[in-house]
């Protein structure tokens, strides 16, 4: 901590990985891709937020939530509500029977704005709600579940049911939520047109910036004692409890953290894509988010970003050329990731690329890196969980 720790960190192997990702997202992709494709990459990155949350929640702490789409959707809907209100000025909606309310409310014979839409006139409230609403819901679910020691498969099923409930509710309450079409036709953010290529580029970079903030937040958590306890909890919950830690509190914390990430991702999704609909938050969407995290390597926050990018890119690629093959590929991915390489891309990287890397590093004598990072607490479930693919250098 004495001499320019930041520079030292960037020169470390972990820093290199972050720099490589930053180079890819900030320099390479914007240079290579046309604006339309870059916008799609931005959309994929919004899923990376959810995947990072899942790494913390599922990979580290062992809590599998099949309802992350709920938090993603809540964040997205909060942002969409603000944008929709901005787009529905009395002048723009003069032809409606009630001018000044969103068009779908008018179609559903609502004559005034519902009370819960009112605060979304304020941008600062919206920003607060994008994180606050998902975290609040996660907190309530967390308190109810974890203090009663519901975990594992039960938790997964109940979160999945919550995703189902929210989707049915949104689709059923058309007048208040826009129904199955979602909230569409979003135009400006505080008077700034978000549909132009230029605005979308700027939003892309904002998205990348937020992504790195979340990555650092997750890294901060995992490298502290807090992160160690999460991993320990996954391996030996009883021992952690008997050591005097309040296991439920840690679980609630990490679940809320994942919800916050997902909410941010959802809000950015709305901005980048220009609408929000229930199809992005339901059971199927939520469980797909798990595969982003699993493919990247369930214990690696950087892996999660690559996982989200790759799965979504593959999905778009397949759906453009062979739409009927995509479900087969997706299904095979689920089975393959679980059966053949449970540590995902990060695991493959660690076992095949890292040895090469070590050779190079040794020849240059630039850094004395221990060959393999410290193994995480214990071995769970018959496969060895790995920490990040770097040597943990505490700053």
């Amino acid at each position: 901590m004495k001499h320019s720790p930041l520079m030292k960190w960037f020169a470390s192997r972990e820093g290199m990985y972050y720099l490589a990702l930053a180079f890819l997202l900030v320099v390479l992709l914007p240079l290579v891709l046309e604006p339309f494709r870059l916008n799609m990459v931005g959309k994929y990155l919004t899923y990376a937020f959810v995947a990072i949350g899942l790494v913390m929640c599922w990979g580290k702490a062992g809590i599998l939530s099949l309802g992350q789409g709920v938090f993603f959707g809540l964040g997205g809907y909060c942002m969409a509500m603000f944008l929709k209100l901005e787009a529905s000025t009395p002048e723009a909606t003069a032809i409606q029977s009630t001018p000044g309310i969103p068009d779908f409310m008018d179609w559903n014979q609502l004559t005034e704005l519902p009370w819960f839409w009112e605060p979304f006139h304020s941008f600062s409230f919206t920003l607060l709600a994008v994180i606050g609403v998902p975290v609040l819901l996660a907190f309530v679910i967390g308190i109810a579940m974890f203090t009663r020691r519901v975990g594992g498969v039960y938790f997964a099923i109940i979160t999945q049911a919550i995703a189902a409930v929210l989707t049915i509710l949104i689709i059923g309450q058309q007048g208040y939520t826009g129904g199955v079409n979602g909230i569409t036709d979003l135009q400006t953010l505080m008077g700034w047109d978000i549909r132009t290529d230029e605005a979308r580029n700027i939003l892309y970079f904002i998205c990348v910036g937020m992504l790195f903030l979340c990555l650092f937040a997750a890294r901060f958590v995992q490298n502290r004692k807090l992160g160690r306890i999460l991993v320990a909890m996954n391996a030996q919950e009883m021992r952690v409890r008997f050591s005097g830690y309040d296991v439920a509190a840690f679980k609630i914390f990490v679940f809320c953290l994942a919800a916050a990430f997902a909410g941010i991702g959802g809000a950015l999704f709305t901005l980048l894509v220009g609408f929000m609909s229930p199809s992005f938050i339901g059971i199927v969407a939520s469980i797909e988010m798990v595969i982003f995290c699993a493919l990247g390597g369930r214990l690696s926050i950087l892996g999660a970003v690559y996982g989200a990018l790759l799965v979504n890119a593959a999905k778009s690629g397949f759906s453009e050329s062979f739409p009927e093959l995509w479900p087969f590929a997706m299904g095979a991915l689920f089975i393959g990731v679980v059966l053949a390489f449970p540590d995902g891309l990060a695991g493959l990287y660690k076992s095949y690329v890292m040895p090469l890397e070590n050779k190079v590093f040794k020849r240059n004598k630039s850094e004395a890196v221990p060959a393999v990072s410290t193994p995480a607490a214990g071995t769970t479930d018959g496969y060895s969980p790995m920490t990040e693919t770097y040597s943990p250098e505490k700053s």
Partner: protein
Amino acid sequence: MFDGYTSSELMSIFAMQGFAGLSLFSVFVLMALGLAIIFGQMGVINMAHGEFMILGAYTTYLTSGFFQSYLPGLFGGYFFIAMILAFLICGALGALVEWLMIRHLYHRPLDTLLATWGLSLIMQQAYRSIFGAREVGVDLPEWMMGAIPVTEMVDLPINGLFVMVIALSVAVGVYLLMYRSGYGKKVRAVVQNRPMAEAVGINSAGIDRATFALGCGIAGIAGAAFTMIGSTGPSSGQAYIVDTFLVVVFGGAQSLIGTIVSAFGISQAQSTMEFFLSGSMAKVLTLLVVIGILMIRPEGLMALKVRR
């Protein structure tokens, strides 16, 4: 919400909706029994259970087509053949899946969940490629059509009654198998204490495979019964999977009676509320109540006390 109805009308509504709920109940029971056996026995969440059910439904569809073309004289009885075929085909596929996939994942229940979800995606797309995206229905044999009038306002459709009879007979059959047979005794021994069961010479891997196949086979029967009251599409199974899981968890994972009681409660609540509220709100309310109760009582209605 009861305004504007006379008491006799209310009675009839409850009776009719109650009966509509009973057909939902039958489907729930058939699906949930299979799930409960698999989940209770092995702690495995089979996300592809709905797709096994649909496999049974497509088997019935093909059988009915076969009887229509080649054995029109025996058409009245095709359903029983179809049910047996559905059971056998789904059971065989189940055993295969257990052998290829599930047995490697017993120590990682969450991973089984993901792997079986992958399987369900593949099966769904396979149905879509083979049978097309449109829903298909079967022709009911003549004796199954029509309704029995009970009072002047209440009619009971025969196909619904028939499905209910199947559900109850399967439930009784499973009960007998689990509590009155040597196989059932072994299954329960493995559930309660796997190492001890192995120590006394029970082949627990074989029991696991047989149980998984049995659960899938019952899903096949559920699918066959399902064709009697609704049409079948590639993703019909997914529509039921969340409800069915809640039924199983709500009932208490290892209790068959609990599963039946919770299937009854959930289906009745849903169909009765459906009459007074919109269908989606009825479902939301039902699910929320179930989730709420599970938060208060996570072990479900009837939990089996097992020392681990």
